[in-house]
């Protein structure tokens, strides 16, 4: 019965397989991303773009394989990884103790920090210590919620989790601030017409890498991807991609 809808999977595949240059023999590297995290992974006129997209294409090229990008809501990505529908997630996944217990990570390819962002003109909040008694937005499933909960005054912060649009709700004043990584926060402020400003310095170092399932087959794949990242780092390609997107090298300390 579903076969008569064969056109639909075809359409979808057309939308999902946004990459894949030279034909390689083995399975493509299936990479999940939200497609809604500027400038790491986003869509412009139906084309998937971003730092993550460029890095993973370079990795696949280095490995002499194809890459297939699968976009889903952020809250669905780890479920896709768990259920074996993708090989890894390229969405600025920060290495945390909890995640390390469960997943195998490659080396970090982004070093960053958590950043408080407020509506422009907000003088009250000048850093993470001013979040006491405030409403703070974070993305659902991201590790910023955890970071906030680890603060000594966590009980006095009202944390709101969002599936998307935290920048918009902060600009509208529905929440007092949002927490995101410094790199994309500065990018948002620089390029987009929303009245937002960074508040203070980043408050926690973040190392972002690619997670893989903890199985033998996936460990081999992780090692391959890690080797490719290392090669890109040594050849200067990784730094080059970072310069193109951020005007600075975020791929090393």
């Amino acid at each position, binding site marked *: *019965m*579903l076969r008569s*809808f064969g*056109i*639909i*999977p075809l*359409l*979808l595949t057309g*939308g*999902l397989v946004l990459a894949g240059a030279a034909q390689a023999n083995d399975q493509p590297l299936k990479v*999940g991303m939200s*497609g*809604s*995290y*500027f400038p790491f992974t*986003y*869509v*412009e*006129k*139906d084309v*998937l*773009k971003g730092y993550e997209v460029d890095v993973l294409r370079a990795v696949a090229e280095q490995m002499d394989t194809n890459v297939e990008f*699968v*976009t*889903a*809501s952020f*809250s*669905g990505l780890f*479920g*896709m990884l*768990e*259920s*074996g*529908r993708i090989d890894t997630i390229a969405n600025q996944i920060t290495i945390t103790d909890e995640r390390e217990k469960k997943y195998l990570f490659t080396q970090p390819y982004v070093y960053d920090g958590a950043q408080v962002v407020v509506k422009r003109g907000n003088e009250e909040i000048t850093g993470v210590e001013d979040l006491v008694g405030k409403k703070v937005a974070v993305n659902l499933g991201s590790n910023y919620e955890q970071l906030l909960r680890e603060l000594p005054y966590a009980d006095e912060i009202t944390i709101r989790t969002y599936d*998307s*649009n935290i*920048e*918009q709700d902060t600009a509208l004043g529905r929440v007092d601030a949002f927490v995101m990584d410094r790199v994309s926060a500065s990018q*948002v402020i620089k*390029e*987009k*017409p*929303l009245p937002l400003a960074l508040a203070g310095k980043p408050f926690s170092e973040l190392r972002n890498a690619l997670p893989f399932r903890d199985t033998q087959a996936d460990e081999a794949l992780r090692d391959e991807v890690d080797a490719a990242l290392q090669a890109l780092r040594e050849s200067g390609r990784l730094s080059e991609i970072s310069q193109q997107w951020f005007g600075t090298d975020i791929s090393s300390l």
Partner: protein
Amino acid sequence: MNLLDINYMLELVPILLRYLPLTLGMAAAGMVLALMLSAGLAVIRVLRIPGLNAATMLFISFFRGTPLLVQLFLFYYGLPQVMSFLTTIDGITATIMGLTLHFSAYMAESIRAAIVGVDRSQTEAALSIGMTNGQLMRRIVLPQATRVAVPTLMNYFIDMIKATSLAFTLGVTELMGATQKEASGSFMYFESFVVVACIYWAIVELLAWFQRRLENRFNEAYRR
């Protein structure tokens, strides 16, 4: 300052419309399957088939009692951890299955109500002129029940079209998923969501027009 960037919105329309066939396709497939399933469930409930009746009530209770998003996550992400063969189900199939199961629970009750609502005198009259049970259902009860059920079933179809917007959580880029991604690239949230709201609205209006025509047809016999 411009309230809306009209040019951006006009550019966005054709891009988003590429995802409309997928949205409507999933809803249509879900509706066809849900109609069949719910008709079966309704018959079980009306005839109170022993055993099946209790199972049907449990089915309806669960699928009506939990949010569609929870059901989608459960089947797409939860169950495959226990039964790995389920990972072969792709996001589109899972969405269609989720819509089918969820909406058939509601639709079964509407259909049951429509069948039960046909006046008893109709049944008695049919039996008095010697109709068999099959003829009674086919010629007398079901045509009248259909007329009653159509408006609510159309309602469920409309709801189903909008419920496909949850599919992006299963990695299916349909109308809403495409809009979210475009909005995150341009940061034109207002514009993007206005455009997508208008697209959904236009589709539903088109369906409402079709529903009015359908109802007029069914009501012909009742016009005085």
